[in-house]
């Protein structure tokens, strides 16, 4: 208990001074604080906001650890194709873990140091407490970028995402767009060669390009968009032994995280479920188009359109986006009916972008950002609809 008391003493000592937010932040991050959150959109939670954030981080830890293993695994599997035949046999080796940790941990560190640095600076300038919003964002960011992204690009993107995506709107709880996705979208538009294509998803692919032992690390969506046939089995896709952004490949672990979030009532099951329904609906529509023969075999949309509807749920970042980012309480719809609509369109539009934009075949990021923008409008109409319904009931009663 020594550390807790020391931190508490420091907090008391610096109370009211310029650096006070920094000590408070450290104290409440490590130990349960003696007060609960009393403002912002997280006010419904009985805990302090930081506890909420820590719960989400706990749900993300399996994805992070798997991402570290998978980064190394994909690298060695790409060099020696025979390793693919038996994923589990070669999976739990220290080489995989070491290489992955060497590449992934710097991403995590850069994300947190830069992001929290910006938050600290703003807290001191604006004289308020350090806001906790970045704790989850900082963990999401390394999980949704390609493994080889240069650290300086990540730094630029994190500064942009935190300042333009969040602080200009007034900080945590006031932002319109999900900060983690703002950061990814910035990278996506600013440095497209590092964010898409077949050379960025496997460690070392970019450096070895053009050499005799060049390795190809195309994602499944990339292969399908080129009307190719993925070399991975469905079980590979489900467990996550596939190339992709660091932490989003394993549908199994994301499912565990989703159950954990639903059980702790941190994530909204309505959004997750309706997004899955939306994705399935769009997948079925495209399958129907293919079955009806409305699209030719050689069309550039054929490969993705022809993919069986439920396969869309386990490839790409759709599952990760739905579970961890669509459910962000700040940027999602607040009303229950609104959540159904919001989630449904995220799933629906994700698959639509996947199919119709083969150059950038992952649509879930853009779909969530788009629906983030519409979430307040959806809420407005749901609330207005409710008001009208009640007024009508009142009239009937009094008449």
């Amino acid at each position, binding site marked *: 208990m020594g550390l807790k008391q020391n931190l508490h003493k420091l907090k008391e000592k610096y109370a009211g001074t310029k650096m006070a937010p920094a000590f408070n932040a450290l104290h409440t991050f490590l130990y349960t604080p003696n007060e609960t959150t009393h403002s912002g959109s997280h006010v419904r939670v009985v805990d302090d906001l930081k506890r909420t954030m820590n719960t989400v981080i706990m749900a993300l830890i399996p994805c992070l650890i798997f991402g570290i293993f998978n980064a190394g695994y994909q690298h060695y599997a790409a060099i020696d194709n025979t390793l693919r035949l038996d994923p589990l046999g070669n999976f739990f080796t220290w080489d995989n873990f070491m290489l992955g940790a060497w590449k992934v941990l710097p991403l995590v560190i850069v994300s947190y140091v830069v992001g929290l640095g910006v938050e600290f600076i703003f807290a001191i300038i604006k004289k308020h407490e350090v806001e906790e919003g970045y704790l989850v964002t900082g963990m999401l960011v390394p999980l949704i970028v390609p493994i080889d992204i240069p650290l300086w690009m990540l730094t630029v993107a994190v500064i942009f995402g935190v300042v333009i995506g969040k602080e200009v709107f007034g900080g945590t709880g006031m932002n319109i767009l999900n900060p983690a996705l703002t950061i990814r979208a910035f990278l996506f*538009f600013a440095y497209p060669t590092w964010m898409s294509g077949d050379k960025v998803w496997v460690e070392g692919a970019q450096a070895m390009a053009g050499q005799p032992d060049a390795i190809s690390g195309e994602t499944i969506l990339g292969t399908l968009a080129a009307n190719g046939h993925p070399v991975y089995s469905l079980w590979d896709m489900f467990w996550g032994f596939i190339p992709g952004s660091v932490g989003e490949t394993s549908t199994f672990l994301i499912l565990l995280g989703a159950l954990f979030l639903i059980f702790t009532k941190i994530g909204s099951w309505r959004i997750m479920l309706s997004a899955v329904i939306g994705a399935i609906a769009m997948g079925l529509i495209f399958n129907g188009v293919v079955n009806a023969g409305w699209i030719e075999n050689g069309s550039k949309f054929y490969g993705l359109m022809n993919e069986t509807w439920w396969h869309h749920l386990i490839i790409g970042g759709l599952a990760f986006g739905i579970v961890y980012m669509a459910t962000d309480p700040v940027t999602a719809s607040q009303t229950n009916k609104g959540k159904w609509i919001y989630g449904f369109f995220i799933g629906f539009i994700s698959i639509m972008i996947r199919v119709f934009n083969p150059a950038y075949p992952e649509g879930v990021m853009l779909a969530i950002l788009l629906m983030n923008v519409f979430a307040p409008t959806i809420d407005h109409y749901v609330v207005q609809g409710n008001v009208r319904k009640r007024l009508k009931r009142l009239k009937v009663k009094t008449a």
Partner: protein
Amino acid sequence: MALLSKKDSRLILDPLADNNPITIQVLGICSALAITAQLKASIVMALSVMVVLAVGNVVISLLRNVIPGKIRIIAQLIIVAALVIIVDQVLKAFAYELSKQLSVFIGLIITNCIIMGRFEAFALANKPWRSFLDGIGNAAGYGLILIIVGFFRELLGSGTLLGFKVLGDPIAKTGLYAFGYENNGFMLLSPMALIVIGIIIWVQRSRNKTLIEE
């Protein structure tokens, strides 16, 4: 300023900062987003608007007692359209490449809100000399923002300034590029111009708190 009286010099200086047409009045945003991907285009656009606005203001001011109030908008449109066509033809004759690059946006100066705004708000009620100064001032305020935005967009987006490779050669990997630096493709897209203008507004308002609306 000995050349101008204090009242006249305000006409030029006010629109540069505290009454800037873009950052305070939020006019002329469309062209500011569209043509600022390169510094050269921004400068030419700023000069074109300056010519049109200054001359237009003088002409309107001279005619202010002649134009009937009911048809003044159409009269203003004719004057500004004539001036824009002259500017467009001059650019086509002497800077063809640039005029291709600016394409439709020179023609669209006609619809630039700043121009109609100054005609309506100033030139119709003031004498020619003051109207001229007002035109120069407002166009300079507009041009200043265009040039700031163009500077950052070209420097960060293409790594060049006025076409010179100031950051090194991205293909030969010299200069900054030797350290792994890469151009920011987002800077070349219009949404980033909006964000850059937003940042300028943010900086301006945090320096001068009186500009913040309730």
